[in-house]
């Protein structure tokens, strides 16, 4: 279908351009695909996320909602047209870009606003940026940057030996603020085929194809189905449970499951109405088991038992009981899945957004019948992940098309496709009972939970395993019985989402603790402090920990707690419709795989011409691994961060650093980086015959070693390069020492844990049931803070997701597959956040460091819910705490 398009004159970033284009086409498409200006991002195609914000005659609009015709004759400004200016530098200085996918939209909206309001208030900035969603940052640092767009240059990078602990700006930040970062949808060579998927309209469903060949011929496209898959049509993140077909064969187990692929010229494929695809659907029996091999739809149950919990509760002075239900929660990263695949000789190369390149490689190879070495994953930047991009999505699809056609194949999920077909947070139905003695010391705790794991296993076993280990919270619990079951349904696949089920369990546990504190007549913080796990005490798994930071976190919150209670009391004394309340909750979280191997390998080397290369295999999905791992390696080696050249997690050139999940990268990959940095340093010092205290410097092609006695020079060109091209190199692997859990869940599942506690302050409208979180004070024990700037960003972003979980997020299949029915917090929903970092070094972590990424989300929702209860007496038993549920709970509490 070659159509003749009229030539259109446009002015973009001051340049006049002429191109053939459809006047009805979305301006976002014309900019990205017609002009190659891919700094403008597309997150939803519906005006819900603002990522595509551009300026039309200076006014911000969503390019996805603007027909090209309306841009003709007007000035279009995109992120590419921003000179690297004060606002962009402020974004870097404040850590305002994490994954960076919303950054161009934020910058454009911000630029328009600051032009008219050079000295705005915080509230005005919140209003101005209300139309751009960010899922990473919690907005605080973006707003800080807007309020501090002063003409400072970039901050200098720390000198050698001073990287760890410094507020180093993200090393990959400038790409993000210039809009030049390549995300999944941003690579598109000439001649790439466009791939789209045909998906199940409902589930469970049986399907049959019609005449695919005729349909394909009629439309000038190619069609691929399960029958075309050369390898094993099954994958899964945990091999023993692998159960998911890349393309369903006869039966769809979830709405949105892919059953066929259509590939062809972009102009042809994008216009196809896939509702006309020759497939007939029939409803299947919803009472039939989701997988025949799993009776009662039970995927797996996780159990931890210690002591006689029933007896302990029976003998307790006070007992509390609770039942709480949580919904599906969508990751809602602003970048829908996207990527490109092509053949290089007989190697299939896939450049897509991911959190787990080596897992992608191995599973894709298996599906496509290739040796793992014949698949190379070159991760694009990920526009947010939060767990969902650990699983395969489009990798086998574009891989199959590229393999079969020998042409580059490109696929970009629509927002609806992303939401319906990829993983979610497990919905949970949980009950719990706990008892304390007359002094308020915990004696026993019983937890039981059904976790809806959806159609396929994904990370369901991990959730079932992690929940019972963590459901006690970071408290000494002498008698304990916890079971979590992952139960299949014909619904979205529940997988990994920041916390792997622990955030749900914490809501129940922390609600019980408020009851127990009340019954025991103790202040809620004092109750938690009394029961906090101490160094040398066994966890519920019988593991004895050192460097336990929960007491220090709770102590750090003592003054903020008193102040918050005081604020609430004063505010409530005024009367009116608003009731103020304060809540507190804690977290702990084991970093890395649960009792399973989990290694990372770091290679660092210097080339003959003096290039210092760090193979940084920890996929940076916005959390900052590129920066943090480099900081650790830099100080271990004794060279400056600014001298490092980063080589990313390309499976063709970089050793495996595992997946970005389970808050493991700073700890596990960080430790490997520490070891590799030290090893390289030792080699260099050895070459120069110098002692440990010598200073190393690298300039041009020479290493210079100095100590109190003199100086040695090593000419790099004199050394022979190794197989990787390095004249000096080190490669070190670190695998956390763990002990698998026995049948009672006893063992040492993690080598390192992180701890934290948060205070939430809320104002609840007694007559509308609306909740405004006014302030959150977060104390987190990081063991050693490698980069405070980025760590604060993790805390603020985790709190935003926790707030969304508490108050507004509920994914309903078929109903909320967009970002206007599925709500995530906007600028105006975020509280003031105060972060307190505690450093209780872990003996195992690199320089004492512990993980942080997931910990930060866990206490937020329970603290908010406990604050609502403190304000009004309302106990929320079904999340999210939407206004009608809060109002109903307030009325129930009053009766």
């Amino acid at each position, binding site marked *: 279908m070659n159509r003749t398009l009229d030539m259109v004159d446009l002015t973009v970033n001051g340049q006049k351009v002429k191109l053939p284009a*459809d006047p*009805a086409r979305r301006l976002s498409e014309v900019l990205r695909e017609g002009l190659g200006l891919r700094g403008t991002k597309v997150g939803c195609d519906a*005006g819900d996320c603002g990522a595509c914000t551009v300026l039309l005659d200076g006014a911000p609009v969503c390019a996805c*909602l603007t027909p090209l015709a309306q841009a003709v004759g007007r000035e279009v400004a995109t992120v590419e047209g921003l000179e690297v200016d004060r606002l962009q530098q402020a974004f870097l200085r404040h850590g305002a870009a994490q994954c960076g996918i919303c950054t161009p939209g934020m910058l454009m*909206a911000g630029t328009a606003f600051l032009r008219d309001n050079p000295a705005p208030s915080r509230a005005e900035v919140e209003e101005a940026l209300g139309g751009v969603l960010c899922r990473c940052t919690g907005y605080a640092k973006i707003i800080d940057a807007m309020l501090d767009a002063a003409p400072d240059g970039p901050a200098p990078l720390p000198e050698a030996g001073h990287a760890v602990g410094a507020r180093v700006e993200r090393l990959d930040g400038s790409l993000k603020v210039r809009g030049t970062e390549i995300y999944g949808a941003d690579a598109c060579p000439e001649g790439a085929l466009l791939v789209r998927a045909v998906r199940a309209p409902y589930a469970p469903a049986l399907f049959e194809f019609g005449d695919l060949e005729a349909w394909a011929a009629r439309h000038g496209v190619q069609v691929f189905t399960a029958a075309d898959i050369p390898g094993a049509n099954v994958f899964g993140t945990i091999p023993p449970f692998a159960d998911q077909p890349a393309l369903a064969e006869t039966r769809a187990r979830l709405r949105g499951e892919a059953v066929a692929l259509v590939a062809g010229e972009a102009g042809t494929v994008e216009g196809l109405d896939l509702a006309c695809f020759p497939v007939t659907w029939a409803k299947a029996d919803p009472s039939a088991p989701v997988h025949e091999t799993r009776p009662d739809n039970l995927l797996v149950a996780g159990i931890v038992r210690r002591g006689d919990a029933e007896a302990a509760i029976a003998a307790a002075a006070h007992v509390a009981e609770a039942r709480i239900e949580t919904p599906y929660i969508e990751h809602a990263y602003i970048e829908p899945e996207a990527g490109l695949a092509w053949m290089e000789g007989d190697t299939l190369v896939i450049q897509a957004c991911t959190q787990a390149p080596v897992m992608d490689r191995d599973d894709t190879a298996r599906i496509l019948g290739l040796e793992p070495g014949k698949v190379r994953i070159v991760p694009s930047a990920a526009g947010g992940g939060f767990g969902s991009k650990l699983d395969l999505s489009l990798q086998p699809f574009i891989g199959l098309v590229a393999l079969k056609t020998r042409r580059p194949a490109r696929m970009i999920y629509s927002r609806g496709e992303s939401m319906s077909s990829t993983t979610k947070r497990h919905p949970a139905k949980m009950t719990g009972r706990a008892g304390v003695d007359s002094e308020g010391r915990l004696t026993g705790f019983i937890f039981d939970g059904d976790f809806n794991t959806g159609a396929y296993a994904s990370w369901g076993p991990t959730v079932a395993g992690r929940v019972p280990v963590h459901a006690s919270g970071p408290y000494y619990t002498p008698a304990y019985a916890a079971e979590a079951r992952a139960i299949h349904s014909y619904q979205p696949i529940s997988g990994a989402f920041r916390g792997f089920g622990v955030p749900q369990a914490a809501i129940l546990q922390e609600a019980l603790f408020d009851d127990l504190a009340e019954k025991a007549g103790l202040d809620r913080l004092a109750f938690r402090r009394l029961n906090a796990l101490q160094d040398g005490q066994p966890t519920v798994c019988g593991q004895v920990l050192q460097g336990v930071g929960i007491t220090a976190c709770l102590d750090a919150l003592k003054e903020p707690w008193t102040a918050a209670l005081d604020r609430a009391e004063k505010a409530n004394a005024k009367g009116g419709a608003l009731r103020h309340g304060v809540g507190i909750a804690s977290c702990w979280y084991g970093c890395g795989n649960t009792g399973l191997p989990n290694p990372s390998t770091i290679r660092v080397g210097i080339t003959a011409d003096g290039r210092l290369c760090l193979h940084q295999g920890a996929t940076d999905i916005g959390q900052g691994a590129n920066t943090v791992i480099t900081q650790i390696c830099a100080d271990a080696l004794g060279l400056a961060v600014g001298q490092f050249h980063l080589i990313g997690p390309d499976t063709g050139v970089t050793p495996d650093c595992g997946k970005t999940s389970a808050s493991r990268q700073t700890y596990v990959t960080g430790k490997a980086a520490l070891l590799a940095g030290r090893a390289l340093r030792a080699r260099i010092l050895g070459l120069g015959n110098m002692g440990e205290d010598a200073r190393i410097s690298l300039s041009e092609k020479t290493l210079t070693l100095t100590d109190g006695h003199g100086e040695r020079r090593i000419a790099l060109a004199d050394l022979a390069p190794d197989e990787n091209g390095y004249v000096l190199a080190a490669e070190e692997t670190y695998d956390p020492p763990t002990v698998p859990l026995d049948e009672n869940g006893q063992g040492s599942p993690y080598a390192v844990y992180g701890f934290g506690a948060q205070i939430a302050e809320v104002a609840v409208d007694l007559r509308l049931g609306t909740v405004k979180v006014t302030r959150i004070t977060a104390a987190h024990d990081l063991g050693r803070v490698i980069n405070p700037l980025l760590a604060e960003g993790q805390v603020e972003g985790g709190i935003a997701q926790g707030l969304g979980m508490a108050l507004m997020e509920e994914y*309903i299949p078929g109903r909320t597959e967009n970002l206007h029915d599925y709500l995530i*917090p*906007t*600028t105006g929903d975020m509280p003031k956040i105060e972060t307190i970092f505690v450093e209780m070094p872990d003996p195992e972590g690199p320089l004492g460091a512990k993980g942080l990424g997931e910990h930060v989300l866990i206490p937020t929702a329970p603290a908010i819910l406990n604050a609502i209860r403190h304000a009004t007496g309302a106990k929320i038993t079904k999340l999210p705490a939407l*206004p009608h549920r809060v109002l109903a709970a307030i009325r129930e509490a009053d009766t």
Partner: protein
Amino acid sequence: MAAYSRPDTLQAALDVLAEAPVTVAAGCTDLFPATQARALTGPVLDITGIDELRGIVREENGFRIGATTSWSDVIRADLPPAFDMLKEAAREVGSIQIQNAGTVAGNICNASPAADGVPCLLALGAEVELASVRGRRRMALGEFITGPRRTALEKGEMVAALHVPEGAAAGRSRFLKLGARRHLVISIAMVAVRLVVERGRVQQAVLAVGACSGVATRLPDLEAALVGRRASGLSIQAADAMVAAALSPIDDIRADAAYRVQAATELLRRAMNDLTAPSETAA
């Protein structure tokens, strides 16, 4: 590729409309979200090139809001206090990006039960001016929106403008919207209230509620009950039963029906309070 017309006169637009069915496009903030396609599908009549349709002008008998007047235009317009609620609603429509593109007329043509502009326009007694090659006609907004996502637009016809009659541009007004988050949110309930108070007594009271029935609705019984009453303490007149009788809310993902009635009643009380005792602000 389907035809895309972007004429610069209303007459030319009406000629296009008369020829064949065509999608009338202005801000496109509802049209694009309704499709996954890369371009608007089907023949399109883009009316944003027609200068005479844009902006708010004072006329002899009231105010004319041209069909392509954006929400940002409303915010910037110099209008009497009776329009404050419309400006407040304009600031709540989606985001600034949406307000810069989306139009008042598009909001009524889309006829969503949760259209932010409709309660205010009802409370301003707005009339809709429809144009076609056959001529022009006017009807009350309440008649124009015939149901959820349904309007009285006939074949070949488009909205040319909204009119607010002089008599309805009196008094002061307030719009309150309730959603589960601050920005970019679809209303659970919203109210628009306009009061004309003279010598401490209500001369005219106009109340409308949105997102609590298939179409935003006025509350004639409650309005009648308010006229003649003292402005101070007026809000207690907004009784649940009277509000409930005028609404037909549904249970949906955002709230249940019973809550919507309670919330609408409370919002009405707050809006009235704001207008009669301006120092008390609503949450």
